[in-house]
């Protein structure tokens, strides 16, 4: 409790509070803009945080992540366009409620549900993290290697597309992390004679290229269209649900919060999966399943809560184990490392002000988001009016600033553009680039753990299955990899597509 109070003292410093606000504000805007996701934004802003105080920088970047969950709701409800993947389910019933003249109630339920779930999620982080960290401290290098391997396997398992391609991207992500000087011996490897690569491939050019530049290229091929937006309520009272709507949303919000948090803890789970599971559960439990897709309050309230709780849940493995649950938390892990902070079981002892500062900032950020979202929705929707010509030019310039400033090297700009073009091609042919970032960030830690374990065992691979824990994680990995080789029926996407089409045009 004392630590949490210390965290609040950190957050209530004027500068930190301002950065927390900037983070959640940007997160909301990014969540509203289709295409420009949290990964791109965090990648773009990462270099700008170099000169910032480490706690403020990490609070701002975290704020972007959980702010996106709020912002994505707005376009889902008012336009049936998910600003973010985790808002896809909200389109189904949220937009239908808006079409029936209940846009305000839909946004209100989503905002209050998200606030509740976000706050409960942060409370759970506060109470779960200390015991979890103590448990993780007992891990040896073999256990840690297997945890990371299982984490990568889980992320590839939960990818929407080909598991084989996901595994291939994981292998390339890990390989990209090995380019440059070997951290143990200092000798250069996989540089292909390019002097600049001796220092390795930096996270910023890689992330900005794969997400920022590839997104700009994708934007260039899209026909610019004026989007149709249903009007949001003009007064704050218009956001309040009626008694019946409020009654129907309570239980789904509670269920969505619990489910979302638990799914968020699983690597690869995260907010997207949480929303789909919550939607399916609410539909199953409902006495009127026929209303789903036609404006059912439960179909909006549950997934919205699950979305925010899932986002909070994903912070637990990141902060306590140093293992990211998805690509966004992987990028956050990269940000931590760039700022010289190593998240993991020891962070609470070594840098408690950072850990508890981030946790406390989530409480404050959730309140900010609630206050921001309802009165400013009209303003946020206008962000969608920014024409592509301006947006693309600005994004490219921010890319240039971000990439160049990493090492003051034009070579990094070239690398970012190369990754951007490659990223566009890979995305076009169904490769999940989030896994590349996740594997890249984990690569260094994973390699160190594997080599340490092998050094201890003198090359005996049995060390990786020498304890029940490492054996369990090894078994999970093997099962998931075997599943990847089984020819796939498009079960998940097929199940979701009719649901999405049910909402109608």
């Amino acid at each position, binding site marked *: 409790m004392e630590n949490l109070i210390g965290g609040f003292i950190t957050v209530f410093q004027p500068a930190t509070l301002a950065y927390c606000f900037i983070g959640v504000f940007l997160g909301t805007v990014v969540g509203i803009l289709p295409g420009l996701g949290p990964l791109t934004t965090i990648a773009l802003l990462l270099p700008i945080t170099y000169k910032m105080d480490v706690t403020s920088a990490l609070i701002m970047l975290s704020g972007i992540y959980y702010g996106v969950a709020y912002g994505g709701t707005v376009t889902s409800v008012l336009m049936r366009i998910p600003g973010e993947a985790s808002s896809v389910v909200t389109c189904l019933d949220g937009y239908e409620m808006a079409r029936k003249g209940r846009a305000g109630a839909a946004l209100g339920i989503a905002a209050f549900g998200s606030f509740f779930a976000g706050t409960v999620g942060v409370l759970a982080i506060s109470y779960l993290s200390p015991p979890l960290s103590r448990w993780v401290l007992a891990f040896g290098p073999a256990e840690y290697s297997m945890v990371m391997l299982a984490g990568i396997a889980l992320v590839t398992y939960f990818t*929407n597309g080909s598991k084989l391609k996901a595994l291939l991207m994981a292998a390339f992500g890990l390989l990209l992390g090995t380019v440059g000087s070997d951290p143990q011996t200092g000798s250069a490897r996989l540089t292909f004679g390019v002097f600049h690569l001796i220092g390795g491939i930096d996270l910023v050019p890689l992330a900005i290229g794969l997400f920022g530049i590839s997104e700009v290229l994708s934007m260039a091929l899209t026909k610019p269209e004026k989007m149709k937006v249903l009007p949001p309520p003009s007064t704050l009272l218009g956001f309040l649900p009626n008694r019946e709507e409020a009654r129907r949303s309570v239980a789904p919000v509670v269920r969505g919060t619990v489910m979302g948090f638990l799914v968020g803890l699983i690597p690869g789970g995260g907010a997207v999966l949480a929303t789909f599971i919550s939607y399916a559960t609410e539909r199953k439990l409902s006495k009127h399943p026929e209303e789903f897709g036609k404006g059912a309050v439960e179909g909006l309230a549950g997934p919205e809560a699950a979305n925010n709780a899932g986002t909070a849940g994903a912070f637990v493995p990141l902060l306590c184990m140093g293992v990211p649950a998805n690509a966004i938390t992987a990028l956050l892990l990269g940000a931590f490392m760039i700022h010289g902070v190593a998240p993991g079981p020891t962070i609470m002892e070594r840098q408690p002000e950072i850990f508890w500062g981030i946790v406390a900032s989530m409480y404050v950020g959730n309140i900010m988001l609630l206050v921001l979202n309802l009165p400013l929705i009209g303003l946020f929707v206008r962000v969608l009016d920014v024409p592509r010509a301006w947006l693309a030019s600005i994004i490219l310039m921010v890319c240039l600033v971000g990439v160049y400033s990493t090492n003051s090297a034009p070579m990094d700009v070239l690398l970012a553009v190369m990754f951007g073009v490659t990223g566009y091609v890979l995305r076009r042919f169904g490769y999940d680039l989030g896994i590349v970032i996740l594997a890249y960030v984990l690569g260094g830690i994973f390699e160190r753990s594997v080599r340490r374990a092998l050094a201890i065992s003198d090359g005996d691979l049995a060390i990786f299955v020498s304890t029940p824990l490492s054996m369990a994680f090894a078994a999970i990995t093997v099962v998931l990899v075997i599943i990847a080789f089984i020819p796939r029926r498009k079960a998940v*996407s097929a199940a979701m597509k009719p649901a999405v089409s049910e909402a109608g045009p």
Partner: protein
Amino acid sequence: MMMSGARWTALGLLLAAVATFWQAQSLPRWSFDGPGTGIFPLVLSGIAIALSVLVLITERRTPDAPAGTDDSTDDSEAVARYDKAGPVERRVFHIYLLALALLVAGSWWAGFIVTALVVTIVIMRFAEGVGWRSTLITAVTVALVGQLGFGWLLQVSLPEGPADRALRDLLRAGGLL
């Protein structure tokens, strides 16, 4: 036989994996104190080769196979497709590629201000067809905000060219630096 873009992509990944494997082979696999520099890249590139071959085999064979017969992810549907774009969009796409090339060249030789001006003009005027007045106002604003906001206020390192040095000299002469 004509090869689909999906297969070309898989082949590209296979070649990258083979090149990496070839480089990793020359690295020591084991040293006196345990695993060497090369063991991790060697194993990984071996895995990448095997997976690339599998993807190459399982990838659809023709460019026009019906949707749903391949393994493309939802992300492949989220990204705009070159082969389905009209001539106008393709033209815009090509100009954006040119803008990226100019971005690289500019960061090497021209400095931030000139690069920002050129890239913004290429995108706004030539790709998007925005009028000259709006284009020039935006280009100058982007260049100055970038240089003054990031370079001067936030002290972020930016590519330096004659225009950047001239602006800095101007600020220095005005007592602002």
